[in-house]
């Protein structure tokens, strides 16, 4: 990254943060997934224990028997380490795709892309700077959401149960591998769509299909079909990283001045 690319990245990030509508969308989803949803689950488990009967089957599938640990703690662990990570993956997908749609098609819509193309940055450098802007925002929103979630959850748990819950190693895999990889996949898909899309919404829709595998993962957590653990997440992260690399390479080749100006 040279200084010109950094200037472009900084400008892209500023464009999004100065757009209240886009910023609201970008903050509402993490707020719902990392503060509201976990809090509702924690309150249900600790304050209305009978509502947890539905989780009984799930508990039976866990490697630890209910006798070894308090059932409430087990359920809280299940929520924090199995269910929320699946929901959490929606955050990098959403943040990165909103950011990259704005940064590619948004420029096209506002007729500012042509001005950028007349700069001495090569198309590859422009492409890299814009991807880095999307990735940085995606990761920043994800990490801040995780930090906010942990802070709120631990405070709630401390007041409700008198103890705190330590997140499992799987969270580290999510934050360091799966979230960055899925963020890059979302960016690559959005960028590929941007070559043809005329509006930001059209470009964002390209990444919507990524939500379906995440929803399947969420459902599998609730039904116990495939409970995530560090190894499953590691495998998923590697597959996503390879997919992101392949998609990026393909997307890069799609960009020519002529196509971008259409």
């Amino acid at each position, binding site marked *: 990254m040279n200084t010109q690319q950094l*200037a472009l990245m900084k400008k892209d990030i500023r464009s999004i943060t100065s757009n209240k509508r886009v910023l609201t969308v970008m903050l509402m989803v993490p707020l719902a997934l990392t503060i509201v949803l976990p809090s509702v689950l924690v309150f249900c488990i600790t304050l209305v224990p009978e509502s947890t009967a539905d989780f009984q089957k799930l508990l039976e599938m866990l490697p630890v028997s209910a006798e070894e640990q308090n059932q409430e703690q087990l359920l809280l662990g299940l929520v924090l380490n199995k269910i929320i990570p699946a929901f959490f993956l929606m955050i990098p997908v959403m943040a990165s795709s909103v950011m990259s749609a704005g940064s590619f098609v948004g420029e096209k819509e506002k007729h500012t892309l042509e001005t950028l193309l007349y700069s001495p940055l090569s198309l590859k450098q422009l492409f890299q700077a814009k991807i880095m802007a999307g990735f940085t925002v995606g990761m920043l929103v994800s990490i801040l959401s995780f930090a906010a979630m942990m802070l709120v959850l631990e405070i709630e748990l401390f007041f409700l149960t008198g103890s705190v819950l330590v997140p499992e190693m799987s969270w580290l895999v999510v934050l360091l591998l799966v979230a960055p990889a899925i963020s890059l996949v979302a960016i690559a898909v959005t960028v590929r769509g941007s070559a043809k899309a005329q509006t930001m919404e059209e470009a964002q829709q390209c990444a919507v299909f990524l939500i379906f595998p995440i929803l399947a993962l969420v459902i599998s957590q609730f039904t116990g079909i495939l409970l995530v653990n560090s190894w499953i997440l590691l495998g998923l992260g590697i597959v996503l990283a390879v997919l992101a690399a392949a998609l990026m390479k393909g997307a890069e080749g799609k960009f020519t001045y002529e196509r971008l100006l259409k």
Partner: protein
Amino acid sequence: MKAVETEGLSKIYTGGNKAVDNISFCLEQGEVFGFLGPNGAGKTTTIKLLNGMLAPSGGSCRVFDIDPAQNPEKLHQMSGVITEHAQMYDHLSGMDNLIFYGTLFGRNKADCEKRATALLERLDLADAKQRKLSAYSTGMRQRLSLARAMMHSPKILFLDEPTSGLDPESAQNVNTLIQELASDGTTIFLCTHQLRYAQEICTTYGLMNQGNLFATGNIEKLRSMVSDKVKVRVKASCIPEDMECEKIGEHTYDISVNSEEEIPLLVRRIVGAGGDLYQVSAEQLSLEEIYFSLIDKNHAETECGNL
């Protein structure tokens, strides 16, 4: 080294639309080249070809000996471009926009601020420099675009309608600036519909119609393509009966002569015939008259060719 050189340059868009058809011309450094023609003549396409935004379908072009299609980044380092679709960021102030674009050209922030301040001052935008672009009028945006294109002190400026949306005073200010730039050695490639302004600032011209460059040269050359005659407007009490003329008002006549040298002879004949002379002026064809005359001629030739 030529500033711009094209040889049989053509561009056919997908779908078969021939936007630029086999055009060849050369520009010297420091020239102000007026690229004139109606909408859809291929002017903007030519600018895009010369900046590497479009790949030519045929022929070649070089700008300061750089092939734009092969090395656009190197060319962009020394060129500034204003087109209708090259806009700036509404959420940034005029000053921040200029600093951003200056940084893209590798200048440091302090340099950019200094240069931006000078340009904003020069283009009467100093009072609005901290205002967001969304609050700028069309004319202010246009002037800021010119400042943006000049941020990196380019060797060549491609200006597509730089005075559109400007009030006469601002347009005059921009034209003076263009002339100053040209006198400092910057080559200007100017597309415009405002022929009166073009005549004030351009040194050479290229006339386009339906993708064809049908006339190039300075105004004298273009004038000679329309007519070799000089029109003399005479206000006299009477003129000799055998003198060929066109009466255009009371005691006012247009008379065609072959050259300015014939004017004293003409005056002597009128006075000799007992006429009182009140006014004599050699009327030269303006760029506007030349343009319409040549465009009509080109249309007629195209239609003949099609038949």
